[in-house]
Structures are given as structure tokens and as C-alpha cells.
């Protein structure tokens, strides 16, 4: 590798002060330090040795934790296509993966390119190094959108998020909102047709003749959460209703396991709670993500789900025409379903734990996570306008996180003051 290093070193004067391409120094530097860790040594005063960790490694850990969800998600795009068109039995694993790749890979590339360009432009104009945060953001964005999303939209979203959510606040470490979720929120409110409803989650594709391919009997393009809202309207228990309405599950008994494994339609990376769980274990074991947020988020969602069950009413009474009886099917859904459907698992594991936009104190993290869980369920169940609640719940709590920390830190100040006067 020495020749490569020498080659880079030879170009360096061009980018250094006084060089022709001086303005592009940080772009060059990012490339060089990507391949070769810099030969920097500790200063004369202060610590003489440094930990082997750096931000690149930390970010890379997140990317690795994401890998199961990425691979499964890409395959699931193909799988959903094939069960929708009725040839899931015929298509091989490889064919399904390839189908998914064809759709997902361009999204990933465009997301990295568009956001990365904004990042690099800011590095050039503002004279600061390109940071590693985008390594994670760039892959998170395509994972929280449907595979059918137009490329120009993801390019817009990625660039918008880096610009508005991150760079205007001063770059990595200064942002208030999670960058990837800001991209998703941007898409959600700017182009709702391509990221909500029941037309976008499963790619049907076109036949050779240029017409939409035929779908199986009983095909529905809606996600679990979309169907849950329908169940509510129909006044039927959610699990039975979904199992009945969806073509991707055969019986109510299978529904929970199918959802947990993730063989359901949805955004590319978010469908499999199982893969998110594997990612969570990686993040918790490496301590890159704080278990407090994940655990309290799960507990918060369960608690809120159970609380809603209490108010669900009585279906039998409604059927029998008892006066004043009511039945809200969505409120009656078993609470654990909230953990395995929609983007909850993905959000709580990979988005809520973003250290920059989350609470920073340990106590704060418990509160922050729990409130995300609670808010997610409230938005899902009680607000029919938004089938999915995790995105808004996290963004809301991102804004609240500094407030939570403020009170936690204030308690510390008071405790210390009290201790001192005793």
C-alpha cells in the first residue's frame, strides 16, 4: 500500500495552503484519511497516548449493525414483489435478492451522493473537515423509504436533510434533529403520494409488454398499520382483520411471527423486527447505542399499548346491541404488535439512539426513550391521519431532549449545592 500512500502524498502540496486546489483541501483530506489514518501524534502536554477508537470506527459499527436489516430488507423487496405477483414459489432466493437490489441500490447510491455533495460543499466553503456522520445517515435514509421511491425524491430529501437538519446548525454534533428522519419527514410532507397510502409499499413491476403485472387474488398494497386503521373503521379485531385482508399472511396465528421476521410490506429496511433486534444487540454490546433508550422505548410502547387496551370497550356488547357500548378495534390490538409492525423496531434501535439528537444524560435517556414509545403508540392509534407514529415521535422527542437534560442536569446542580452546604 506504500505506493498508494506515496502517490497521495505527492498530490498533497496541490491542496495545501498556496496550492492550486487549496480550496478543496478538506475534500482531499477526507479521501486521504479515509484510506490512511493520519500520522498525527499526541501533543507535548496532555495525554501521551490515545484510545484506538475514532469516530470512523464508531460510525462503521452502526453500519455493521445495520447490515442484517439492509440485506433482509433488500431481499424482502423482491420477496414482496414475488408473492404479490404469485410466483414466490418459483423465484429463487437469488432472484428475489437481485430484484430488490435493482431497486434499492440506486436509492442507496443516490442518497450517499446527494447528501455527500452537500456535506463536501460545506466542508469547502466553511473550511471544516468532512465528518463521518454521513456514513450512517446516507444508508439510513434509503432504509426508511419504500423501494418504489423516485430517485430524484431521495436525492432532494438527502440533500435537504444534510443542509437544513445538520449543516445550518454547524455540522455533525450540533444538529437537533436526527438527520435521516428529517429526510423522511421532508418526503412525507412534500411528496406524500410516494411514501404513504397503499400503492407504494410493494413494487409490482411491469411485464414485458409494458403493462402492470397481474397480482394474486386478495392482493392488497396496504401495510399492517394501514390495515389496522381499516380494522378500526370496520369494528373488527385488528389481528383477524389483517390476517384476512392481507395476501402476505394466511392465518391470524401466523401474523405475529410473520411480522416479527419481517415478511411484510413496508419501507426497505424497517420491516424485520428480528433484524433490528440483531442490530440492537450489536449496538448494545459495543455500547455504541445506549440500551436505556431501546429498553425504555420498548417498555413505553408496551405500557401505552396495554393502557389503550383498557379503553378498547367490548365487541360482544356492541354486537348484542347493548346501549352505550363501544368497541375500538385498534385500541384492542395486543400491545406487543406495536413492537413488531411498522418502523418501531428500526426507529427505536437506529434512529432514537443517535447520540447527538438524543438525551445525553443517563436519566434523561430513560425518559426520552419511554416517551418515544408512548408517543409512537398514541400517534399510531389515536391519530388516523398518520398511520406511522415512530418518525414523528422521535422528531418530537429530539426537540424535547435538551429540555429533559436541562432538568436532569439541574437536579445534579441542586444535589451538589445541597451536599456542599451540609
Amino acid at each position: 500500500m506504500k505506493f498508494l500512500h506515496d502517490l497521495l502524498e505527492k498530490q498533497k502540496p496541490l491542496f495545501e495552503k498556496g496550492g492550486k486546489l487549496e480550496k478543496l483541501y478538506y475534500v482531499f483530506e477526507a479521501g486521504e484519511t479515509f484510506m490512511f489514518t493520519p500520522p498525527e501524534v499526541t501533543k507535548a502536554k496532555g495525554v501521551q497516548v490515545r484510545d484506538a477508537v475514532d469516530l470512523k470506527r464508531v460510525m462503521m459499527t452502526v453500519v455493521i449493525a445495520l447490515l442484517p436489516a439492509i440485506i433482509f430488507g433488500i431481499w424482502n423487496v423482491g420477496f414482496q414483489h414475488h408473492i404479490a405477483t404469485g410466483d414466490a414459489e418459483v423465484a429463487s432466493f437469488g432472484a428475489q435478492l437481485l430484484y430488490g437490489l435493482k431497486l434499492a441500490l440506486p436509492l442507496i447510491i443516490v442518497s450517499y451522493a446527494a447528501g455527500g455533495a452537500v456535506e463536501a460543499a460545506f466542508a469547502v466553503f466553511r473550511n471544516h473537515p468532512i465528518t463521518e456522520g454521513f456514513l450512517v445517515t446516507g444508508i439510513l435514509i434509503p432504509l426508511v423509504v419504500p423501494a418504489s421511491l423516485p430517485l430524484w425524491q431521495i436525492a432532494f430529501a438527502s440533500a435537504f436533510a444534510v443542509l437544513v437538519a445538520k449543516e445550518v446548525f454547524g455540522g455533525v454534533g450540533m444538529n437537533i434533529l436526527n438527520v435521516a428522519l428529517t429526510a423522511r419527514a421532508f418526503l412525507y410532507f412534500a411528496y406524500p403520494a410516494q411514501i404513504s397510502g397503499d400503492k407504494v409499499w410493494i413494487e409490482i413491476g411491469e411485464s414485458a409488454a409494458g403493462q402492470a403485472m397481474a397480482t394474486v387474488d386478495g392482493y392488497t398494497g396496504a401495510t399492517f398499520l394501514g390495515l389496522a386503521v381499516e380494522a378500526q373503521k370496520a369494528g373488527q379485531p385488528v389481528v383477524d382483520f389483517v390476517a384476512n385482508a392481507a395476501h402476505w399472511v394466511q392465518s391470524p396465528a401466523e401474523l405475529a411471527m410473520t411480522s416479527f421476521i419481517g415478511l411484510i410490506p413496508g419501507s426497505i429496511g424497517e420491516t424485520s423486527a428480528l433484524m433490528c433486534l440483531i442490530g440492537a444487540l450489536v449496538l448494545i454490546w459495543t455500547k455504541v447505542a445506549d440500551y436505556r433508550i431501546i429498553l425504555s422505548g420498548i417498555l413505553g410502547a408496551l405500557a401505552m399499548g396495554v393502557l389503550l387496551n383498557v379503553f378498547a370497550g367490548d365487541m360482544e356488547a356492541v354486537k348484542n346491541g347493548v346501549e352505550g357500548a363501544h368497541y375500538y378495534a385498534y385500541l384492542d390490538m395486543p400491545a406487543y404488535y406495536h413492537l413488531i409492525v411498522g418502523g418501531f423496531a428500526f426507529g427505536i434501535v437506529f434512529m432514537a439512539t443517535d447520540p447527538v439528537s438524543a438525551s445525553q444524560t443517563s436519566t434523561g435517556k430513560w425518559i426520552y426513550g419511554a416517551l418515544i414509545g408512548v408517543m409512537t403508540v398514541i400517534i399510531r392509534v389515536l391519530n388516523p391521519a398518520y398511520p406511522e407514529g415512530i418518525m414523528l415521535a422521535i422528531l418530537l422527542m429530539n426537540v424535547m431532549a435538551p429540555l429533559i437534560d436541562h432538568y436532569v442536569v439541574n437536579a445534579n446542580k441542586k444535589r451538589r449545592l445541597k451536599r456542599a452546604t451540609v
Partner: protein
Amino acid sequence: MSNNVKLKQGFDIKLVGKASESIAKNVEAPKRYALKPEDFLGMNRPKSVVKVGAKVKAGDPILIDGKQEEIKYTSPVSGEIVEIQRGERRKLLAIVVEADSTIEYKEFPVKPVDQVSVEDAKATMLESGVWPLLIRRPYAIVADPSDQPRAIFVSSFDSHPLAPNNDFTLQGQEAYIQAGVDVLKKFAPKVYVGLNGATPSKLFDNVVGVEKNKFNGPHPAGNVGVQIHHTSPIANANDVVWTISPQGLVQIGKLFKEGKYDAKQVIAVAGPKVDTPEYVETYVGASVDTIVASKIKGDNVRVVSGNVLTGTAISKDGFLGFYSNMVTALEEGKKSRFFLTDGWLAPITSRLSFHKAFGLLGSTSKEYALDTNTNGQDRPFAVTGAFEKVVPMDIYPMYLLKSILAYDYENMEALGIYEVAEEDLALCEFIDVSKHDIQKIVRQGLDTMRLD
């Protein structure tokens, strides 16, 4: 009354090259000794009071602070002033003494300690050069003679990486330690001694008149600041306490028992680049040239006065710092690493990490031969919750550091700036993913609060 404090937070950096408990015989006595004004935190206007060519005895003043002239900084050895090193704008860097072959000592009055008044004790200590051994908290600066400290704290053990074992370096000096304690009790009603809970120092077994507390846990359990926090915390800017090292107690005790300023000390010479790491007997401020010549192998080596967390890099003929109790030698890590083979994307076991991020597979319990590479570049603060795990105090380090950077006086005060010194947050600097100079920030905060 004695507490047994268990500290969970902290981290022991295990390095190759721990000094074995023997005194090196093959190290020639250094010729040159120096006082460096930079070592004395809080010194405003360092002034040399000697000229090149002057003859001095051990204990003769050679340096003063123009703003605090009572405190004399004296020569550790007898001999001739051979050099006064100055830097930019004639800033005083070092006053160098070339030592006589046998040390002559300036004489100070000898009197049984119980018959010495506070005023006399103070005068003798100020005159002889032992005063700067007293450190004042808040701010961690040289004690002010007009202070009325509430208490004096001594940590009997040093928990820094490869730090010397005081039981070995000070063995047989128990009587001086007791005398030192007795002198200091004239200044403050209470003297606290922090003992290592795992292996309590024998030096203090028979020392009376002190409150002993035990501290268990990884570094920084031996830091006096951590011990103060868990015994009798500093309340505010006016709540003054002093701290002193066991070595300092010995020097003060000797001053009163024998009437001389004896700057002799046994230091550890340790680290991955040291040939047979062991102890060396020398004086405060010694040049390391003879130590380097006989003990340090290789060329690409950094010599550190002090330990790897709080020390200062010095040249191969540089001088030990006034407060240094060891020399560490390690490899200079000025090299690039390809990202796939041993850079940021490669699994590695050869470098230590407190974190468990991807590819950091080295165990924290094995000994490492670390080099001085920063292993990454300066970045904004991104990771949270890590600093708290290495600071065993009820303090939020990240919030404190941010308040310092924002010059937010009120918050610095409320978040605990008075309770910390650089060394207490040095581990944060080691583990910091974003590679900040945290000790420098802490000092900036302490200076801001002190001077404004």
C-alpha cells in the same frame, strides 16, 4: 473514623514496562538540574533571581513569581547556575544548575515540630522551597501563603499507568512523613489520607493525627481530587483545601527534622521503550540525559516527564518536571496506517480501547506497548455517556466542558469546576472519540474562574 469508598467508574490503562522494585545501578548521576516556571501552575510573572555563573546551595532561591514574591523556588542541588533558558519574548523557560559532586545544603533552623509556631513554620517553608509542594484547590495551583485551608488531603498512592509504588520509593521515611503531617496540622485542623483499599500503604500505618479513608477501584481512585469529592467535597470558590503528595510530606518533614531542603527522590523509569524498567535515585528537576543513555532503547522514542495521562513530552536531554515522579518512554507513533490492514476498518488487537466499537478486539486486561499516535482526528463531540464512565464523581463532564468552552461562569460553577483538576478528567481525554484536548479545556476553565 474511616470510610471504605468503592468506585466503579474509571479505567486502568495497562502498559508494558512496569518498573521492578529495584534501584538502577548503571545510571550515572545527572549533572544538570533545572526549575521550569511552567510546572508551577498559577505562576504569573516568573523571574530569575540568579545570574549565570552564580554559586548556589540546595535550598537557595533561584526563581520567584513577581506577583507572589514570598514563595521562593529554590535550587534542588548545590552547584553553579550554567544557563537561563528563554523563549519567545524573553519568556523564562528554565534555570539550569550544574551540580557539585557532593551536595551542600543551606541550613534552616531545626526545632522539635511541636515547638514551632505556624508563623515560623510558614516562613521556613516559604524560604526553603518546599512551599510549592502544597497545591491549592479549587484551581489546582501553588498554595497561597495567605490561605486558611479547611483541610489538607494526601493520596498515599498513585494509580496512574505505570506509576511508582510509594511504599517502595519512600520506604524507611515514615518518621519524616509523620513530621510533615505534624507541620501541616498547624495550618489546617484536619489532614486526610487516602489509602488504596486493595493494598493499603504501609507508610501510613503508624502515622497519627490524620483521618484515613480507603479507596477501591480503577484509576483515578488514587487522584486526590476524586478522594476529596468522596470525603469532604469542595463547596465553592472560597472553600480552600490543600493537597500534597507523600513525597512532599517527606521533604517537609526532613526540612524541620534536619534543617535542609532535600530534593532527593526515587523515580520510576518505565514504559514500553525502557530497557529493564526500574527505579532511579535522583533529585527534583534532573536532566534525563543519563537515564536515556543507559535505559532507553531505540531512536523513535518519546520521553515523558511523568505518566502517560498527565505528563509532558521532553527532549532526550530535557528536565524532569517539578512534580514528576516518573519517566515514561514510549514509541513515537508518527506513521500512517492503511484503513483495511491496520487502520479504521481493520480488526485490531494491538491497540487498547476503552470502547468496544467495530474491530477493537484487544482485551483491556492485557498489557500494551502503546505509541503516541492519536488514532484519529479532532471532531465535534458526538458520542455521549462515555465520559461519565471514567469519572468517579457526581459530575457531568461533557456539560462541564461545554460550559467552559462557552465561558459560562454560572454553569461552570454549578457543574463542579472547583472540584476538578486536569488529572481528574485525563481519562476522558484518553477515551475521547472526538480527540479533544480535554485537560487543556479544564485548565482554561480553571484559569477563567480564577482570573476573571
